[in-house]
């Protein structure tokens, strides 16, 4: 139609044809983009060649030459950049998961408090939200870090129940061991003795005897799950599977007969109780190793560094203030008539909240909640300023500076965060589609 119209009117009017214009502008944009890309790639190649930096990812398998001591996976300087990267990845993952968890709990609490009819509580929650939201998260991380490194020295630690100690090195607590100390393979033992040095080893033998010394060495690398620890683990898995099956069954029964069985408390009891019962029956050893003050520092137990605590605290408190507002908006978005209708049907308040209000509120809450989780994960990269070795601190920081492989390191770092983003949004989209309104 348009062809005949344009050919009839005038010969020059193809300039005004939207199709021609669209193709023309796209060609121009693509051309500019390709030129820019060529310019960048060409310059980078030339610059790298001049600087004598070989591109490629081979550097990952060379020794890192720096220690990763803080965080949850210590890496020695003799291990490779790849190992350091893995440690960073684990640390990012841990702080993101625990941050999201704590932020959600606190955020939901804040959201509910903000809706409270109690004027005082309402205002207190509002003050919290407004203060925290309007101050940069980096500032808050530094603030908490300042507080944690100003804690007393190990000797004057703040104690809780004689088991937890808070000092300027972080928080120490008991470490739990399941099962017995496993027997070390001879090769590993020899390697450890070699690393330890003859003098120290002889001193140990003098103190504990030949067998005692070996036991001491084995103890120092004792894994959390030793021999015989499979019993509580299997019991735990069995309990989880059992509870899932039980939950399906209760839903079926309720749909068929209307009869309700408790799921939550039965689940909690089974998941905690079953492993405990099995441990008691089989006599698997469960040992708590308490941290002990020796000289100027603590020995044993497990510890969480001040850097992690500051990061975790600041990120969760900050994100919680946003989640609180999201939860509040979500609950307010559910029309009042819904809960009134539920009350009119005689549904109890607790059930009204759980079965009527929350499912509808979740539809409003989940999408913005997803972006808050993403924000928290991305903000965890600020770990850099508190010395917590996450992805940016290891591969994007020290490795980059040591090897000069800027392009590769930054590409890896960005790829990690893009993957995290993708995973979180995929999961949340799946969850969102599960709870979304099913329309006709």
């Amino acid at each position, binding site marked *: 139609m348009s062809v005949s119209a344009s050919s009839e009117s005038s010969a020059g009017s193809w300039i005004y044809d939207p199709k021609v214009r669209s193709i023309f502008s796209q060609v121009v944009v693509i051309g500019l983009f390709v030129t820019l890309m060529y310019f960048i790639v060409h310059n980078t190649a030339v610059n790298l060649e001049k600087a004598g930096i070989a591109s490629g990812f081979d550097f990952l398998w060379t020794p890192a030459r720096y220690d990763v001591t803080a965080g949850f996976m210590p890496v020695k300087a003799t291990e490779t950049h790849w190992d350091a990267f893995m440690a960073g990845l684990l640390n990012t993952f841990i702080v993101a998961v625990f941050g999201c968890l704590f932020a959600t709990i606190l955020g939901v609490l804040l959201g509910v408090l903000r809706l409270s009819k109690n004027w005082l509580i309402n205002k207190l929650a509002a003050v919290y939200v407004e203060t925290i*939201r309007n101050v940069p998260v980096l500032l808050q991380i530094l603030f908490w870090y300042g507080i944690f490194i100003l804690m007393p020295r190990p000797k004057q630690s703040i104690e809780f129940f004689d088991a937890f100690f808070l000092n300027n090195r972080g928080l120490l607590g008991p470490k739990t061991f399941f099962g017995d100390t496993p027997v070390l393979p001879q090769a590993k033992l020899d390697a450890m003795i070699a690393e330890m040095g003859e003098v120290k080893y002889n001193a140990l033998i003098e103190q504990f005897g030949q067998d005692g010394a070996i036991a001491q060495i084995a103890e120092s690398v004792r894994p959390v799950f030793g021999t015989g620890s499979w019993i509580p683990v299997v019991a735990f898995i069995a309990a989880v599977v059992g509870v899932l099956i039980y939950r399906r069954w209760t839903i079926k029964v309720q749909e068929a007969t209307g009869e309700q069985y408790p799921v939550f408390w039965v689940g909690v009891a089974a998941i905690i109780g079953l492993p405990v019962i099995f441990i008691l029956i089989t006599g698997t050893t469960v040992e708590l190793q308490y941290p002990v003050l020796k000289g100027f520092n603590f020995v044993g137990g497990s510890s969480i560094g001040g850097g992690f605590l500051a990061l975790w605290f600041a990120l969760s408190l900050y994100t919680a203030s946003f989640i609180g507002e999201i939860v509040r908006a979500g609950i307010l978005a559910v029309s009042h008539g819904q809960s009134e209708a539920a009350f009119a049907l005689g549904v109890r308040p607790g059930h009204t909240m759980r079965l009527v209000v929350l499912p509808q509120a979740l539809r409003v809450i989940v999408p913005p909640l997803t972006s808050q989780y993403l924000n928290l994960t991305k903000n965890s990269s600020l770990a850099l300023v508190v010395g917590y070795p996450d992805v940016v601190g290891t591969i994007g920081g020290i490795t980059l500076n040591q090897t000069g492989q800027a392009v590769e390191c930054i590409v890896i770092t960005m790829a990690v965060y893009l993957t995290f983003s993708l995973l979180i949004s995929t999961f949340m989209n799946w969850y969102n589609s599960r709870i979304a309104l099913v329309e006709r």
Partner: protein
Amino acid sequence: MSDTTKSFEGWIAPRQPPSGTVGAVGWMRENLFSSIGNSIMTIIGLALIVYTVPGIIDWAFLSADYTGESRKDCTSDGACWALVAVRWKQLFYGFYSTSPGGGSLWRPNLAFIGLLIAVVPLLFDNVPYRRYLLLFSLVYPVLAWWLLSGGFFGLDEVSTHKWGGLLLTMVIGVVGIALSLPIGIVLALGRRSDMPAIRMLCVIFIEFIRGVPLITLLFMASNMLPLFFPEGIDLDKLVRALVVVVAFSSAYMAEVVRGGLQAIPKGQYEAADAMGLSFWKSMFLIILPQALKIVIPGIVNSFIGLFKDTTLVLVIGLFDILGMAKAAVTHADWIGLAREAYIFVGVVYFVFCFSMSRYSIWLEEKLDTGHKR
């Protein structure tokens, strides 16, 4: 009232409501002690206030030290605000006035006053002489650049690496805010375009930027950007940070604007087309005025986020106000005063961000023409 009641025989005079339901007592019953649970919460809340607030006031004001040369002069138990009193010049201006190569402080001060004059007519439409003030807003960027950086018309040049403190925060924040909205609008329009190539480029740009932390982009700017250019071209550190901050916040802005564009009913687009308006005319006259109005809260939230994110430039060695505070508390004279320094910086940020959020609420109410659904 009493006259009318008197005139009718047999009518019962209106009585006061029960004393417990009005006045302060009634309010407290209603809002603080309406149930047992509420009463417990109130008591917990009160306990929290009584337990913390006097201590905080005592620490921050009553037994605080306000003057001194170093932390040794802070002898009382309270806060040591002497840190701020001694270091205010660095916290606000960085090393702007330090020689060699520094400038006098009237220049950033004047630039700041100019900023106020330039911004007020943009924010409020009942300002007298608004038309002329808007012209000033238009030339202000050039004027501010000349004032701060100098180098011609009789002002000495002050290199950007001397800029710091709140001055730097404001420069990055204002440039970011001023540029991210137009670029964000263009990206949002591109993302909704019918042209697949343009749409794809916009989607890739937006999703990539939104998927990675700002800190990695800043690292990219400081480590990789020099590789992208032929040798000899050395980009200013501040310019690099600005490019990254603007790119980062425009990607977020684009998503906010896209939300507004999607909320406009299709009939509006079709009506604009039916009137024979060109694409840009229909956008600027019909669609965007409505779309942007809907997403004002989102836009201002984005601005607030940007302003808070300016703190991140400290990881590439630019010293904004937080960087200056961080440097101050690692100095031997002030070590261990992290709380004071960070609380001060926090208050500065709070003032800016909180006023922005209040302004957005005010604007939202003002522009509410009753079409809210």
